């Protein structure tokens, strides 16, 4: 197999394998760019309360609250991917999520009270959830595998750029207009970096 053929086949097979992610990242960028298009009329349905009960846990004075979040979930029979944040000194929020559902668990530190609310399904949340999912902080193999695939998509972008440039240069009749497009793109981008 020649280098030329290898690069062409890599470009196409990698693209076909990652097509679902590629299409997903394209479409799921829309709610970020045009949030108003996805706003439900009159605010949409409200979250439903799953439980609201007395609960007590020590919240440590640390920026890393993941362990505390895991304990809250475990104590209350909940499991899944989650994130933890403290919006103010009197509250701790644990956000439990999958692509299809999300539950916001709020611990009111001063009241020693735990409230869990299920958010209704919304297409904008589904798409932004797909788009923003990544990293390796969740304690599950499949989540890590998703993180690896996100890396693979990024490497795919770099490979497509490299192999694409190579294939373009092989097509002599396209060099002038292609060079103009490439140069124009960089020029516009630098203008944005400078003046934005």
């Amino acid at each position: 197999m020649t280098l030329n053929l290898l690069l062409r086949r890599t470009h196409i097979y990698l693209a076909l394998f990652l097509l679902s992610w590629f299409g997903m990242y394209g479409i799921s960028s829309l709610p970020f760019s045009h949030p108003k298009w996805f706003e439900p009329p009159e605010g949409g349905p409200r979250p439903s309360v799953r439980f609201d009960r007395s609960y007590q846990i020590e919240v440590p004075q640390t920026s890393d609250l993941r362990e505390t979040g895991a304990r809250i979930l475990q104590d209350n029979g909940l499991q899944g991917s989650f994130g933890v944040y403290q919006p103010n000194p009197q509250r701790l929020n644990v956000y439990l999520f999958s692509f299809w559902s999300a539950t916001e668990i709020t611990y009111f530190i001063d009241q020693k009270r735990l409230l869990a609310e299920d958010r209704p399904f919304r297409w904008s949340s589904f798409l932004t959830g797909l788009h923003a999912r990544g990293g390796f902080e969740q304690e599950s193999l499949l989540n890590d595998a998703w993180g690896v695939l996100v890396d693979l998509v990024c490497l795919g972008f770099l490979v497509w750029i490299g192999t694409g440039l190579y294939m373009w240069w092989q097509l002599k009749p396209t060099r002038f207009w292609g060079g103009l497009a490439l140069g124009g793109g960089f020029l516009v981008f630098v203008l944005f970096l400078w003046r934005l």
Partner: protein
Amino acid sequence: MFSKFLRRSHLYLALFLTPWILINALSTLAMNHRQFFAKPGDNPVHFEKESEQTYNGTFPVQATARQMALQLLKGLNLERAFSVQAKPEGERITILRQDPISPRRITFAPKSGMLVVERQVFSTHTFLERMHRRRGYQHHRLLEDAWAVSVDMVIAAMVFWALSGVWMWWELRSTRVWGGACLLLGVGLFGLFLFSI
């Protein structure tokens, strides 16, 4: 003719949008590996003081925080997209003035007239993340809108590349079997993730 048009569009659009795709790939890599750049919960954004002065100007009666911010930015010759936060009772106004390379934080205390300008310390990963997140038409500046249009163009291009790529693959008969296998494997894997995590 249609096939040639599709191939050329796929190619020229990709060449023009190369810098956007490059930044998108690098920034996503950086965001996927945040733990390399900062400990969980730590703020990766740091500012250093650029100037401190007493502001002697006056504001219109009942000026909003946004109107005051705009006037301050004009005075500092730092007019660009920004967001503003005002502490209760007008104790302090904090302006976050956007810039791809060096965003600034401007703090103004109306009672003392103290105006402090701080520049965000440059780091590659915060720069990449900033570029990744910059979008939308909310700033009412021509250049901001032009950037938002370019982001929309990338979104449309991604969908177009996917569709035109499948078309071009199907025309290459010798790649149909392995290409089909790659496509099915990818779709299957994506479906598995969709319903399991």
